[in-house]
């Protein structure tokens, strides 16, 4: 308990100190949340303000605690997770173009009240220059403490923390160029980490509205740490390397058309080594993913009210793992297009389609995952406005996919998937303060296995679904709103048997109904409350030899109250409390309670 108090004290002092300072854009907040067996507390404070004419202070603190009652299910013990963090930055304006500062940061995480604790603290000084508007240089250096306390092993590391970054935006006619370089890291007793970033972008306007954009991104994050279970920890270095290069050309064409061309290449690597150098066993975990792409997009307007886009893309890549058996090469081709037309002042139509294939090839003879994946999709949307108070929106989609494993060891699950769906919706606004939305959807999803005839069990299937949803919202007065929702959903699932065409043998069906009602009501000038009620009902049936049998019923009731208490300008207290009760066939009644309290105060 003393330990907890010891940790809480700095935060408490920080809150008090923060509250006493003259403020500029500062706030604190408290939150409590209960979701069944999980309890969460969170407090935060942020402060930004001037100290004299040349100094500026930024400070923030965060304290959070989580309790999971009877956490693991074995011994029923409670589980605690605590974390707090503090940071403070004091900047002093040396000249109009340079600033020096002191930075202090501390973070602590604890599991089961100190059973495992990690602490990180940094104290550093910084200096920033911006001698010209286009150039900015920043640097910091300081000391760092990294401490880990575990039941069997304790570790404490101290060392240096450093960082250097710069950016340059040269002024070149008709060109926007940016160069950013950053280097940072820690050098502790055993654990080292380093990060470097290089980003360059050149965006140049060419003749007649043409444009060329070249960008390069190089990032390397490395860390040396003790990895593995406590009895077999190994000091390893992990480097995550990412490089990307892209070239985009935008060309204007006659009749207000545009052509966009793009070339790209990415290379992502994760490499492991021992501190003394490369190691064969460590390198077994290495991975490298490379991808090269080429794409072209045509955007145009063929008539006054008609616009279209067309896209073509090719990609090729390689996934290279330390263990060769997992290696694979990939190739993807895709073609897509869309058309949007304003048919009249009341009608609009949009059509979109895509077709694509991805192929994977595995070089290792014992890897059987060579496969092709074909996808196609078409979508049609139509809108008609009958009246300002009545609008119809209809969407229809057809999607298809074909998964093909080439080798006999994996081809058993090759299948076609097809989805057909239509979604009509009506938006009605008979009165200024009354809105009604009525939505429907009907869909059928077919999955047909290629080699169904070779197996005795049938996997080809069809899933069908129909839904209707009604939403109504009515504003009785300022801040007095009523909303009501009702939804009904019916669905069934059956096996598809090939007998002179496909025949469906129904396996099950179920239906759902859901009603919810809420009202938002200002109890006083400061307090607005919103009670809400909900009821859900689900029935499930099994089908055997053409007979329908009742399987289960689930009823769910929900009651809740939420509210907001205004404490003045930008200051609010929010609360939410709810209980859900579920009654399911052959199961005891289940109750779910939730509670949330939030206080936010800006000062």
């Amino acid at each position: 308990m003393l330990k907890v108090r010891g940790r809480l004290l700095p935060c408490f002092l920080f809150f008090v100190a923060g509250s006493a300072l003259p403020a500029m854009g500062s706030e604190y907040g408290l939150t409590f949340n209960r979701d069944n067996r999980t309890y969460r507390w969170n407090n935060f404070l942020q402060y930004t303000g001037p100290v004299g004419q040349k100094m500026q202070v930024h400070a923030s603190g965060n304290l959070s605690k989580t309790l999971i009652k009877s956490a693991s299910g074995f011994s029923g013990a409670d589980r605690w997770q605590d974390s707090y963090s503090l940071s403070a930055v004091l900047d002093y304006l040396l000249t109009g173009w340079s600033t020096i500062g002191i930075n202090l940061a501390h973070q602590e995480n604890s599991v089961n009240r100190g059973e495992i604790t990690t602490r990180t603290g940094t104290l550093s000084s910084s200096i920033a220059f911006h001698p010209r508007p286009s150039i900015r240089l920043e640097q910091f250096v300081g000391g760092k403490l990294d401490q880990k306390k575990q039941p069997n092993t304790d570790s404490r590391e101290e060392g240096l923390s450093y960082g250097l970054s710069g950016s340059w935006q040269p002024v070149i006619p008709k060109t926007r160029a940016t160069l950013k370089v950053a280097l940072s890291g820690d050098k502790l007793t055993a654990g080292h980490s380093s990060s470097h970033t290089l980003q360059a972008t050149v965006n140049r306007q060419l003749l007649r509205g043409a444009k060329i954009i070249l960008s390069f991104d190089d990032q390397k994050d490395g860390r040396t740490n003790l990895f593995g279970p406590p009895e077999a920890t190994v000091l390893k270095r992990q480097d995550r390397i990412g490089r990307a290069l892209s070239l985009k050309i935008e060309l204007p064409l006659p009749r207000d058309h545009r052509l966009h061309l793009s070339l790209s290449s990415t290379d992502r690597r994760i490499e492991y080594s021992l501190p003394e150098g490369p190691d064969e066993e460590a390198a077994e975990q290495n991975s490298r993913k490379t991808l090269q792409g080429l794409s072209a997009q045509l955007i145009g307007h063929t008539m006054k009210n008609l616009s279209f886009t067309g896209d073509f893309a090719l990609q090729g890549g390689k996934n290279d793992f330390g263990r060769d058996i997992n290696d694979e090469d990939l190739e993807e081709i895709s073609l897509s297009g869309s058309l949007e037309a304003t048919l009249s002042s009341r009608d609009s139509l949009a059509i979109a389609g895509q077709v694509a294939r991805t192929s994977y090839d595995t070089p290792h003879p014992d890897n059987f995952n060579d496969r092709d994946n074909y996808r196609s999709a078409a979508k049609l949307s139509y809108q008609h406005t009958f009246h300002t108070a009545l609008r119809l929106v209809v969407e229809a989609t057809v999607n298809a996919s074909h998964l093909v494993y080439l080798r006999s060891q994996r081809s058993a699950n090759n299948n076609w998937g097809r989805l057909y769906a239509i979604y009509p919706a009506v938006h009605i606004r008979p009165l200024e303060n009354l809105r009604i939305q009525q939505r429907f959807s009907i869909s059928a999803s077919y999955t047909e296995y290629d080699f169904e005839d070779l197996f005795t069990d049938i996997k080809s299937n069809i899933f069908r679904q129909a839904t209707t949803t009604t939403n109504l919202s009515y504003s009785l007065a300022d801040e007095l709103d009523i909303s009501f929702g009702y939804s009904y959903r019916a669905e069934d699932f059956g096996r598809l048997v090939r007998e002179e065409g496909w025949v469906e043998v129904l396996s099950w069906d179920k239906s759902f109904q859901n009603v919810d009602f809420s009202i938002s009501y200002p109890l006083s000038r400061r307090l607005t409350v919103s009670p809400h009620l909900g009821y859900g009902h689900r029935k499930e049936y099994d089908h055997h030899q053409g007979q329908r049998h009742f399987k289960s019923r689930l009823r769910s009731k929900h009651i809740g109250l939420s509210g907001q208490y205004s404490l003045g300008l930008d200051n609010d207290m929010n609360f939410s409390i709810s209980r859900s009760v579920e009654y399911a066939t052959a199961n005891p009644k289940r109750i779910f309670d939730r509670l949330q309290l939030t206080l936010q105060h800006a000062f």
Partner: protein
Amino acid sequence: MKSVTLILLALLLCGCENPFATRSADPPSIRRGTWEDPTFYDAVLRNLENSYNEQIIDNFTDCLSENFRFFPDPEDNAQYPGIFDDWGREEESDVTHSIFTSGTTTGFIELALVDTTMEVYFYPSGDSVKAEVIYDLTVEQEKVSAPRHMAGRAIFFIFEGTGGIWTMSRWEDSKADFSDSCSWGELKAVFAGG
């Protein structure tokens, strides 16, 4: 002239191989693996369990949604710093693939998911479920430093998506309070390079 160009273009296209066509496959020589269509949320858990026990990576990957995220036990996060940053579907699939190919004997992986508690949330657009399970996992693999027995609690958030298919979008791991057991996250961390 225009129509001649169009005819020539059409003939040229007809003469080309369809670039979107898939290659032909060999007829299957082995079983499909145990797979239930995930049109019920609990089927996702059974598919996950079976994919581990049969080491079929596609059946495992099909349990995960595109925006999948894994959240390790805080102790594992402290033990393996940086490993679980931005752990999504791709990382989960790669590491599980490595676990599935790490042993040679039949049945070297045994997974049991027990004591499942489901909390169903109704939404008109599709339901969601928070499933809490106790897991017991044994992996008799050949990687010396990796743990062989894992036990703990996992919370899975499973959502109903297009076509009534349920997939897992979030996995929260919590290790058991047995002193001699490791968590699922620790196994993943070791195979991810720890």
